[in-house]
């Protein structure tokens, strides 16, 4: 479990090239997450975000919001996790960081109970685990692309909104 969580944090921080000096607040949250103490991590993150001022580095705020979203996924609060990913996307100033956060929000919303199912006949993919989440991203892209194509042709030919 610990090994998996460490791997998750590495994926999280390298995604979007947002590896940077970590504030004590980010370090504390990550330590709690590595220990599997997600509710405590959420409390720590909430305290840090509540204490944030205009001078707080947006990069730190982004990291805290991403950690919050990941912790919420682990506690099964999927709607709140999607909202936290959205907040992270709003906060980010780095293009790649925005993309990662927004894509996570889109996937979480499309995955009831943290499982993405491209098709009723297919096995659901766990999106809490960052490794299987990558598979879910690919499966979702294929599904959306397939379903959009006929709608796109129709929309482009339509005379109305």
């Amino acid at each position, binding site marked *: 479990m610990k090994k998996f969580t460490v791997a998750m944090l590495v994926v999280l921080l390298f995604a979007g090239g947002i590896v940077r000096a970590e504030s004590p607040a980010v370090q504390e949250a990550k330590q709690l997450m590595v220990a599997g103490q997600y509710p405590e991590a959420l409390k720590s993150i909430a305290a840090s975000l509540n204490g944030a001022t205009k001078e707080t580095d947006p990069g730190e705020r982004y990291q805290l919001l991403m950690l919050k979203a990941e912790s919420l996924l682990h506690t099964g609060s999927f709607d709140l996790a999607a909202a936290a990913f959205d907040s992270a996307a709003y906060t980010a100033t780095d293009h790649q960081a925005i993309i990662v956060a927004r894509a996570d929000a889109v996937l979480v919303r499309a995955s009831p109970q943290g499982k993405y199912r491209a098709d009723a006949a297919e096995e659901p993919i766990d999106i809490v685990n960052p490794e299987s989440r990558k598979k879910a991203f690919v499966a979702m892209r294929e599904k959306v692309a397939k379903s959009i194509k006929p709608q796109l042709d129709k929309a482009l030919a339509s005379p109305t*909104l």
Partner: protein
Amino acid sequence: MIDLLPSMLDLANLDLAIDGSITTTKDDLLKLGARARELMNTELRRVSIRLAVTENAANSWDAGYRRGLLPAERDDLRDTVAYLQRIETTARSARRRAIELGFDGKAWEPIIADAGDLAERARAILAFAL
């Protein structure tokens, strides 16, 4: 069209997150965005003319009385406000997400402004052309 745009933007976002580029969806996204703006502009022109006609009719005089708005016109104006707000919200969201995806979102700005202005005008007619 309005419903499809967010899905198309989601797809482009997934492309970027997975591959680091949106080459596969870029053309479709640009085509859809251009078509959506074209149809939105057509709708905004249509609504603008309709508002002017409604306002003129409401302000017309008949046998010494100002006509005012008929109940059906009031309902129509309320629906129009909601419709314009939907266009504005969609355009605002498309602009923000286009910028997030690395596009120039400026093409959406006139639609956001026009839809907002027209919604305000429709509200004013509802409030004052009793």
